[in-house]
């Protein structure tokens, strides 16, 4: 039988044993490594790139050294930054319309099986047909270049939102569905209080993919739209620089596109974390 005194835990009893100490060390190393390792690899890559240029005597109009790309980025900053803003504008607008269209269609699909059966194939066809092959047609039929760019980016971006949100709306806990039915919930109440919250994690997953795709969609559309008119975004800048054999500027523009993609992905990840941190498994910190 245990007694009261045995149940007491004193400060001396709380020792850090070997295993726990090792575990704490491993956690700390992992935390540092998560930031440090990618930085080291990037630094090494840039250094290797520079060395390859120097050792092989590669002319800067074929492969510029990283330093030259950085210089160009600073020198052409005004031009490049304005181009970036134009591309980003198309991307963000397209993403916004993709969210509205994707969620709207998903809600429509889950309200009626027959609507889903009828129109889902079209969504799939739009998704699997490469945007480069549709874009020229769009620019023939749509007068406004801005609208054309937007439509192209939208077509690429909306599908993951549609398909993920549809899945989410349909995956509400079936016991909760029964409960809503027993309590006489209306269609609207079921959507608002059960299906939309259930779909949120799925939607956010789709949104993260769609963010990257919206950028790709805008860039591809700019390529197809070509020189005329308003759109002088980053893709157009790359094309133009290519014609002039201004390779460093191509690299600088490319760097900005990649950077924009990373920033979009990170912002959406942070948004997702903020919305889910209170309750969803994906956002919870676990004890070991």
């Amino acid at each position, binding site marked *: 039988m245990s007694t009261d005194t045995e149940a007491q835990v004193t400060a001396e009893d709380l020792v850090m044993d070997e295993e726990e100490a090792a575990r704490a060390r491993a956690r700390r190393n992992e935390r540092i490594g998560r930031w440090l390792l990618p930085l080291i690899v990037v630094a090494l890559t840039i250094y290797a790139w520079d060395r390859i240029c120097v050792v092989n005597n590669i002319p800067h109009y074929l492969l510029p050294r990283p330093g030259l790309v950085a210089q160009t980025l600073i020198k052409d900053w005004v031009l490049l930054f304005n181009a970036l803003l134009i591309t980003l504008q198309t991307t963000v607008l397209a993403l916004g319309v993709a969210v509205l269209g994707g969620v709207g269609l998903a809600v429509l699909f889950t309200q009626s099986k027959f609507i889903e059966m009828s129109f889902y194939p079209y969504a799939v066809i739009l998704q699997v047909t490469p945007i480069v092959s549709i874009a020229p047609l769009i620019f023939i039929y749509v007068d406004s270049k801005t609208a054309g760019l937007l439509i192209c980016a939208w077509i690429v971006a909306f599908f993951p939102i549609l398909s993920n949100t549809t899945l989410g709306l349909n995956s509400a806990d079936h016991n909760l569905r029964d409960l*809503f039915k*027993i309590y*006489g919930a209306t269609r609207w109440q079921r959507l608002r209080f059960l299906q939309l*919250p259930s779909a949120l994690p799925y939607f956010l997953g789709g949104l993260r993919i769609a963010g990257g795709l919206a950028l790709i969609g805008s860039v591809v559309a700019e390529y197809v739209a070509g020189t005329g008119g308003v759109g002088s975004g980053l893709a157009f800048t790359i094309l133009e620089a290519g014609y002039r054999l201004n390779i460093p500027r191509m690299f600088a523009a490319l760097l900005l596109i990649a950077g924009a993609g990373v920033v979009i992905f990170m912002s959406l990840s942070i948004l997702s974390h903020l919305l889910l941190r*209170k309750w*969803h498994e994906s956002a919870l910190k676990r004890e070991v």
Partner: protein
Amino acid sequence: MTTQETGAADPSAAQTGSDTVLSLQNVTKVFNGNLMALKGMSLDIRRGDFVSLLGPSGCGKSTALRLIAGLSHATSGRIAWHGGQGAGDLGVVFQEPTLMPWATVAQNVWLPLRLRGKSYNAVKDDIREALSLVGLENFLNAYPRELSGGMKMRVSIARAIATHPRLILMDEPFAALDEITRHKLNDDLLQLRAKTGATIVFVTHSVFESVFLSNRIVVMAARPGRVIRELTVDAAYPRTDDFRTTPEYARYCSQATEALHAAMGEHA
């Protein structure tokens, strides 16, 4: 008879007794035209009853519960509510706690009231009361993931009683819990029943649970699902943990076990 009545009181209510809440009359359910899940079940549930439906899996006890809840409709026979509202006036507890993970404890309990158009402030006191009846008045703002399995089930029970329903349906609510927690929740459920006077239909496959909790045990058999015996447990309430050690309890348990064996025996 093929009518099913879940709406207003029917004229025959007077004959079945004024304190009858719900009666099942010769209720049969056939799934898909080839599987008889429930055959000719008749049962009167009186106000204040704690009725256990006890039987092996496939005996139609959950089907009976779904029919009462209005989640599915009887193939033949009728289900009649007496004296007032029908299936809308129910509380339900499933085997899983079935809480909304994105909502706090208080918001979960608010749900049935919210679906009736009640604002949170209007029913704040009901929510608090329901939660204090299950001993969770200090967890209003907790999220379900922060609670243990037993506590989640308590929230589920609080949600079921928040509307002061005329009948509470419980579908093996404690089956997934460990034995210590289950005993504690059984005790607490009886206390809650004493305080609220709730009428409860409780599905279980545990003989001990059914004897401890109920005043009536309906023993059911499978293939086809049907009632084979009804036992009355006359031991007085309140029953505390001590009831589990009385000879009376042992006797009821052996009666129920025997009935259950008879139910299993035919197809064992």
